[in-house]
């Protein structure tokens, strides 16, 4: 177990970290990966059956259901920042993460009880609140449990396990519905059981004080003011600005699939499978690209990922047409995520002292998520005004400019190899 990896206490870290173990993935990372895998099985079971449940099981018209998403996105950003901050106070990463996972687990049996759209929407909102709460503390624990030079790989392993769970969940749900026609209650019950196991694995196998072993941080160092002062750190500020800039030119997945479908006339029955293409590429490449990021520098890989996204936009805009093109777009899209999702956290972890790790990661994640949401709103508006091709061309141009700007800004992390 690694004790600390703050740059400020580099000497202490080197003294305490057992050298030969640097090659291994920390048990905490595996434990957290397992928790995410199990939790994703549980939540993706629900996601997979929810449309059918609403339409066929309850006879509802779920249209307009997503209308509150905009409002909710704002709330979710606040929750994430709060989760990050609370976790840093007294080094309570595990308790805050446990509350987050627990909250989501509690929502699963609630689905057995509520049968109307507004209430189901409320339960899903609480579920997502739990997700928002746990993300930053969990990522902080991953970074605190592994040596800084293996952060990329550690996040890669975690994200791969997470995605494996997301792919398994729908299959489990399908098997249940095949055994029991209309057995949505059985799906919810099994999902609850799975979620509880996830929380138990967290409680039993993730150490309570990943960070500093025994020494609790001075309360004065972990305050809201200190969290905000993080932005005064040059490294983190540059990193946040770059993540924000690039996020502003990252179109949401649903738009990518929509444009892809229109561009290549993807048969309707395949449309629902497009996200699987992205997930498959992500699952295969997230560990290798995490390792690559450890070796080449996270920033390079992160930037490279966005160049791949630019290539995906380019393919969607080219007049050529060949059979493998939709696959190529999905492969690029998945590789983009593999090169950026965990890698950004690895880069951010290096730029934040360990006692403010969770707040710092939450800050970067929130900045990126907010920028992406803004991009989606702008993209939707541009689509309305000028059509999908023009909207995508504008985004691609924006992304090219942001990539260039980021390459020029070059956060300090890029310097390390």
């Amino acid at each position, binding site marked *: 177990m690694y004790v600390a990896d703050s740059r400020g206490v580099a000497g202490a870290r080197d003294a305490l970290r057992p050298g030969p173990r640097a090659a291994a993935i920390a048990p905490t990372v595996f434990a957290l990966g397992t928790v995410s895998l199990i939790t994703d099985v549980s939540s993706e079971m629900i996601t997979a059956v929810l449309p059918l449940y609403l*339409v066929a099981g309850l006879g509802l018209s779920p249209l307009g259901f997503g209308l509150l998403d905009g409002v909710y996105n704002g709330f979710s950003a606040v929750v994430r920042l709060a989760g990050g901050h609370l976790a840093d106070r007294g080094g309570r990463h595990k308790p805050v993460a446990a509350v987050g996972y627990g909250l989501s687990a509690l929502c699963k049996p609630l689905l057995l009880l509520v049968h109307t759209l507004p209430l189901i929407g409320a339960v899903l909102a609480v579920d997502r609140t739990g997700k928002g709460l746990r993300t930053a503390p969990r990522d902080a624990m991953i970074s605190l449990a592994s040596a800084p030079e293996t952060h990329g790989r550690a996040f890669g392993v975690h994200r791969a396990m997470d995605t494996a769970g997301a792919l398994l969940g729908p299959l489990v749900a399908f098997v249940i519905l095949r055994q029991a*026609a209309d057995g949505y209650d059985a799906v919810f019950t099994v999902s609850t059981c799975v979620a509880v196991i996830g929380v*138990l694995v967290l409680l039993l196998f993730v150490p309570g004080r990943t960070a500093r072993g025994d020494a609790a941080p001075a309360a004065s160092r972990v305050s809201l003011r200190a969290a905000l002062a993080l932005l005064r750190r040059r490294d983190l500020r540059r990193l946040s600005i770059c993540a924000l800039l690039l996020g502003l030119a990252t179109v949401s997945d649903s738009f990518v699939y929509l444009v892809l479908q229109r561009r290549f006339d993807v048969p309707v029955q395949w449309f629902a499978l497009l996200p699987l293409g992205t997930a498959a590429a992500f699952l295969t490449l997230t560990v290798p690209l995490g390792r690559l990021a450890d070796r080449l520098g996270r920033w390079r890989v992160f930037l490279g990922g966005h160049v791949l996204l630019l290539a995906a936009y380019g393919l969607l805009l080219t007049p050529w047409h060949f059979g493998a093109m939709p696959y190529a777009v999905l492969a690029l899209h998945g590789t983009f995520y593999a090169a950026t999702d965990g890698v950004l956290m690895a880069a951010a972890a290096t730029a934040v002292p360990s006692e403010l790790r969770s707040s710092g990661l939450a800050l970067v994640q929130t900045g990126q998520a907010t920028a992406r949401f803004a991009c989606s709103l702008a993209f939707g508006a541009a689509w309305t005004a000028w059509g999908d091709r023009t909207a995508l061309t504008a985004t691609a141009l924006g992304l090219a400019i942001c990539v260039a700007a980021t390459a020029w800004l070059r956060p300090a992390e890029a310097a390390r190899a």
Partner: protein
Amino acid sequence: MSTPPSAGKARMTYRNRLLVLAAAVAVLAVVATVSVLHAAHRAGRRDQAQAGGPPIAAGHVSLAASSRRLMVFRNMAWGPHRDELATVPATTPGGPRTASGVKCLRFYAAAGTGICLQAVHGAVQDTYQAVVLDSRLHELRRYPLGGIPTRARVSPGGRMVAWTVFVSGDSYAGTAFSTRTSVLDTRTWQLQSSLETYAITKDGHAYRAADVNFWGVTFADDTRFYATLATGGKTYLVRGDATAGTLRTLRENVECPSLSPDGTRLAFKKRVKGVSPDAPWRLYVLDLRTMRETPLAEHRSVDDQVVWSGPDTIVYALAGDYGSDLWTAPADGTGAASRLMTAALAPAYVG
């Protein structure tokens, strides 16, 4: 392991933690198994006919014109014919049912053409298909669907067919839904897979947006139709032209229109203010000449595209003990709603 994670606190050994987990997994596995078995048992019971349910027997079902007017619908009553298309004479809706052996989730028919939206059980997922049927319920063509079936209609002359499916998004927790409405010409077998390719005129101006959704087509003839357009958080009644590929908005807050047999009125569901958000719709009839709306005598929320059973009455589905019952109400706002038949969905009048 180098140092134990928290040396300061007395903690369970690794072995004990594993034991706790194993015990919990065992208990939860029992709970999960029981819930699946219970649901499977319940599903099995639905294949047994219920005492007191409507009598039903397999027989010949035809959509062709005949001396007797028939009602064709999806039979929801438990037993071996559950989910099959069945008929009853239009005059005795509560009487014995004749089951066809054809299973559909949604159905409609007119002038000898039937459209059946059905589920196809695959190895790793279920898919949906639209099946065009002739008057003897023989399959003519089959088209894959990109989502869960919700609405189906045939033009009065039997040539044009339209259907709507729900497509769920990929966002976390699956809260983003959209619809896809397709129009098929059964003479040329030309399929317009999405109304989203039509040129839209909204409030007199050309309009396009990424969030455009359509549902609930009702045909006036083999070219003209009405439907619902949703965009920017509002719904609109649109009039469409399937030959020209155009759509024009007429009015706000009209969903699932259904044109009367004489083509002068539209029955529809309207989202009304000041009612519970889980039950937001009420049935109205719009007079297309005067553009006046009349609320109907059904006071509950109805989420269905109604069917006209005659020049002055409508039929619609509401939740019932076996999934869904059919109810009827006068189309002029007078009288009261009454139950027409139990355990039935997606009716069409033929013959």
